[in-house]
């Protein structure tokens, strides 16, 4: 049986701060659904998500309290500077 997990991705300054760009976090199916906000303290980037960091779930901008399911991809995005 495959383990329930969520893929976490970091970009740009957050990736370099953490020292990794992608990891798989195992989740417990019976416990309440994790959210981006509840996962953040496990990433080694401080206790709370800084206000300038945005979140994407499955490659769409999302709320910090979006419930996550096994197989989801959650990304933490530092301030955008395109164009």
């Amino acid at each position, binding site marked *: 049986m495959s383990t329930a997990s969520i893929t976490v*991705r970091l970009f*740009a300054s957050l990736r370099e701060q953490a020292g990794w760009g992608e990891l798989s976090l195992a989740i417990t199916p019976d416990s309440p659904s994790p959210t981006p906000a509840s996962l953040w303290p496990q990433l080694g980037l401080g206790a709370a998500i800084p206000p300038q960091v945005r979140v994407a779930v499955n490659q769409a*901008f999302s709320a910090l309290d979006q419930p996550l399911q096994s197989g989801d991809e959650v990304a933490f995005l530092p301030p*955008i500077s395109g*164009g």
Partner: protein
Amino acid sequence: MAHPSAEERPLQLRLHPACFDPLSALADWQRNLTAGGAEAPAAEAHFIGRVRGRTAHGAALEALELEHYPGMTETQIERIATAISHRHGLLAVRVDHRVGRVLPGEAIVLVAVAADRRGPAQRGGQELLEALKHEAPFWKREWCGGVGTWVEGNTAF
């Protein structure tokens, strides 16, 4: 001949890992708009952005590095372009954007929109460019003296 709507003539989007010529890209888009003998749109607005030779702090810039989120960047630009096309009644949209290492003077972005009037073309093009700067996942790093510094935020309008 009537102009196709934006739904019939979707966004043309190109992310370039190497230097691109914005005028060639524009000519390619215009040929596509008039393919099959279609009448050229009455109004187009174009913006070309190039990398300036100075960092945000005024030092000589070696290069600008552009990181993106493969998959989400393209999807997000599609979402932005579709919403703005509907809001302004645009007939067609073209976006070219560099990724990777970009040198001073090289083109970093091309935004081109077509409409039936100059107002929607200019307003739609401006709104699209600003949305790219704030809502499409790209990150810039300035390289200067062998040191890279992530850029937080955008230059003044």
